């Protein structure tokens, strides 16, 4: 798309007309249905908020609009016509510009160079023309665009402005902002909101992706809520105008976390007699990393036979907590006791020896090695130990016997135990991993999103298995982003937000709807920052 191409203003559709849309679009990834029969209509002059937790399908929808992915079923539309976007270039040509969460600018180039990047290579960038148009943008939208500055030296907020300017220079009709406020200060977010309004007023369709409810209310004209890849509901402009902030947030919480009139989970687990405390964590803290601020003062206990659920929007420290418990992530503070014995300094092998097992949520690249046969994957955490090794030598037939027994017990569907585990489906890989973690004497098991991306039959089987091991006296920590699962299985549910536990509720499935909303409110914790300010 040339900077000097046609003036798009004349071609803009009337406000309220559909610019682009999705028609019952489905997108599957190995083991996961990321977007499930979603239809969507994005209108000119409207700020359309896509709201949902991580994994709700927002990024996949962005990916399809941006030409990075194509739907498996259903199709995209532009102005009512069926459309295919086979590449990012096709997306740009269709007038769609995407500003991704992480700036897609070349940090070593100047702002001007970044703005003209992607133009035809055979002519010199028309500096004077670009400068004139940029001056216009600066005036109209209050953008700061120092053309000769090195992009990498600018703040993230300024880089975002460059991306918006680039979209405008390309005469975009649709501007997609993916989690655009997660990188900027609250003041920057407000500024961005005002800018989005200006863009919408001039007839652009703006798609604003966020998981923050108050931003959705303040900036949006129309709010679409996604939940586990499906459309959970929409708040149309007419309805949104009649709501105040509290009312709108209530509505959004209901759409995001409510049961939607589904049946109360079967055979809820309550009133278990608590046994002796198996695991106690006191004031756990971990170091800050690039993408997460670290855990802070996490304290809880789990008893024998108890299932402690940990709820929270993905990326609020659940993974860090699981890794800290498993000994994979060093603690910077606090202590862990396993059955009364201090285990704070233990490594993975020590914790495993003490009976603590960790079922990772990353079953493909962390939990298993795709190129290795199933039988080796069943003993990955026992390498070198008897009876599978003697004097450091592998006893292959024993391992294969063990694997065959595990395949039978957990009904793993695999051609043979020698099949590379990467050839199996996600559910079957997860069964192998579950079998591995439960073999031997498991006393405490940390499940991290155990049923994520599995089909209904496997989900049911997994939940039954978790209940069974708790009934046998194992202490279970169940990390999940699926509230139904937590309410179905847990005795207590702790809520995690921003690396802390923001509250613990005792499970009462008879009050499922009220619990969902209560937990949902703790999860979004409107006052606290949900992600790290950069």
């Amino acid at each position, binding site marked *: 798309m040339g900077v000097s191409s046609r003036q798009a203003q004349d071609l803009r559709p009337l406000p309220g007309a559909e610019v682009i849309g999705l028609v019952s679009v489905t997108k599957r990834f190995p083991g996961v249905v990321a977007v499930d029969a979603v239809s969507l209509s994005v209108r000119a002059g409207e700020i359309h908020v896509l709201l949902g937790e991580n994994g709700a399908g927002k990024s996949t929808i962005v990916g399809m609009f941006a030409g990075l992915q194509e739907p498996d079923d259903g199709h995209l539309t532009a102005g009512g016509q069926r459309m295919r976007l086979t590449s990012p270039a096709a997306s740009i040509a269709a007038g769609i510009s995407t500003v991704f969460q992480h700036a897609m600018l070349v940090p070593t180039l100047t702002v001007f160079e970044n703005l003209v990047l992607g133009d035809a290579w055979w002519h010199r960038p028309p500096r004077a023309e670009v400068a004139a148009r940029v001056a216009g943008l600066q005036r109209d939208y209050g953008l700061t665009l120092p053309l000769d500055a090195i992009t990498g030296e600018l703040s993230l907020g300024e880089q975002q402005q460059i991306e918006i300017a680039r979209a405008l220079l390309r005469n975009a009709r649709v501007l997609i902002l993916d989690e655009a406020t997660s990188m900027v200060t609250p003041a920057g977010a407000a500024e961005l909101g005002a800018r989005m309004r200006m863009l919408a007023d001039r007839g652009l369709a703006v798609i604003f992706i966020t998981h923050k409810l108050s931003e959705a209310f303040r900036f949006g004209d129309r709010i679409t809520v996604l939940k586990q890849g499906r459309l959970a509901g929409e708040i149309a402009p007419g309805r949104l105008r009649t709501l105040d902030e509290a009312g709108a947030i209530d509505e959004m919480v209901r759409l995001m976390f409510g049961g939607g009139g589904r049946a109360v989970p079967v055979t809820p687990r309550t009133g278990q007699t608590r046994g002796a405390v198996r695991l106690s964590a006191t004031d756990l803290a971990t170091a800050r990393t690039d993408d997460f601020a670290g855990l802070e003062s996490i304290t809880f206990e789990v008893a024998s036979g108890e299932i402690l659920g940990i709820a929270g929007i993905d990326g609020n420290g659940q993974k860090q907590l699981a890794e800290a418990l498993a000994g994979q992530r060093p603690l910077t503070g606090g202590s862990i006791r396993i059955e009364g014995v201090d285990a704070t300094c233990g490594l993975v092998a020590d914790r495993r020896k003490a009976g603590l097992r960790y079922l990772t949520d990353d079953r493909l690249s962390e939990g298993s090695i795709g190129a*290795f046969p199933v039988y080796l994957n069943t003993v990955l955490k026992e390498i070198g130990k008897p009876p599978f090794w003697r004097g450091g030598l592998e006893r292959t037939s024993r391992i294969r016997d063990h694997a065959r027994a595990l395949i039978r017990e957990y009904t793993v569907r695999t051609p043979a135990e020698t099949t590379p585990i990467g050839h199996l489906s996600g559910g079957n890989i997860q069964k192998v991993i579950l079998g591995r973690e439960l073999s031997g004497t498991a006393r405490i098991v940390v499940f991290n999103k155990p049923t994520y991306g599995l089909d209904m039959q496997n989900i049911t089987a997994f939940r039954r298995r978790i209940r069974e091991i708790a009934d046998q006296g194992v202490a279970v920590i169940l990390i999940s982003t699926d509230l139904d699962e937590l309410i179905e299985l847990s005795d207590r549910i702790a809520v995690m937000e921003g690396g802390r536990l923001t509250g613990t509720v005792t499970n009462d499935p008879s009050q499922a709807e009220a619990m969902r909303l209560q937990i949902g409110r703790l999860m979004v914790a409107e006052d606290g920052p949900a992600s790290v300010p950069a």
Partner: protein
Amino acid sequence: MNAAKATADTGAAGLTTRPERGGAVRNLLMVTMGPIVAALVFSGVILLLLGVNPLTYYGFIVERGLFSSLGLQQTATRMAPLLFLAAGLIVAFRAGIWNLGVDGQFLLGAVAAAAFAPLLVGIWPNWLILTAGFVLAGAVGAAWSVLPALLKAYQGVNEIITTLMMTFLGISFSHVLVKLVFLDPATTVPQTRTLPVEDRLPRLFETNISSGLILGLVAVVAVHLMMTRTAFGLRLRTVGASPLAAAHAGLSVPRLTLAVFGLSAGFAGLAGAVAILGVEGNVRADWNPAFGLMVIPLVFLARLHGIGVIVLIFFYSAILIGSESAARKMGVPQDFTLVLVSNLLIFLALAEYLDHRRRQR
């Protein structure tokens, strides 16, 4: 490097995969034999352009490298250092560590053996000199990898770059050592003292083949068994396949990384020892056969498989020996072997790519 890495990844996967029957035959034809034939034909075209009959050239190489008694003995002797280098590379590549600095490690090991062994002739018994020479060369080779190993293990610095840097330094350093420190005062040519022929590794039976060949074969087979049959080997393969999974399984990735560097560079040092103590007897200034760079493609071609490597090194040595004669007799530069091997690699990568595309469909 990406192409090489991709080859190795699919290679490692291929080793643990048991392909379906029928598929195996097609696989062999398409991914293994196909590129070899294509490379021979393509190189033949180049030879034709040079005005040489390719059939005569290939026939000459086969005759000199494989079917003449003397050539065959030379071929077998030439294999020894290449086998040690291959052993070191198999350990590293299977563990996902790209030790491309074997040439520097090899040369420093060679210089250490050449500086040390001749001094003790007549003082220590012969077997002790040879053993100590090997141990010293292995240790020196390993020592040259300490810096890249620490940087990789604890700082995550890309070892492709650091080992390559260290190999340039190591090669220059070995030249400096020969010219300034371990210079033989009895000669005018800068070189180390020479280990007398009778004190070198014994010859096999009644031939000229150095017993270094046996040591090299043992090294490759031992490494192959270690990687495939032992707990330690599985740990290394686990780290190589997925450091994330290795950490999850409780393996100490940094410590295993250090071990891999030590073993890999140690073998490179041993390769230096076997070249000096078995064949050369001394190190001349500016000597750098660059064996490591020759062996790397062969190790990939064999998909990191020990037995496959032995077979390929045998044929490669035969080509080397044959082409040395061919260079003298037919005027084809000896470096043409490099053209042959690079063609082979290009066609191999091409076949790999096509195979990958076919699988995706």
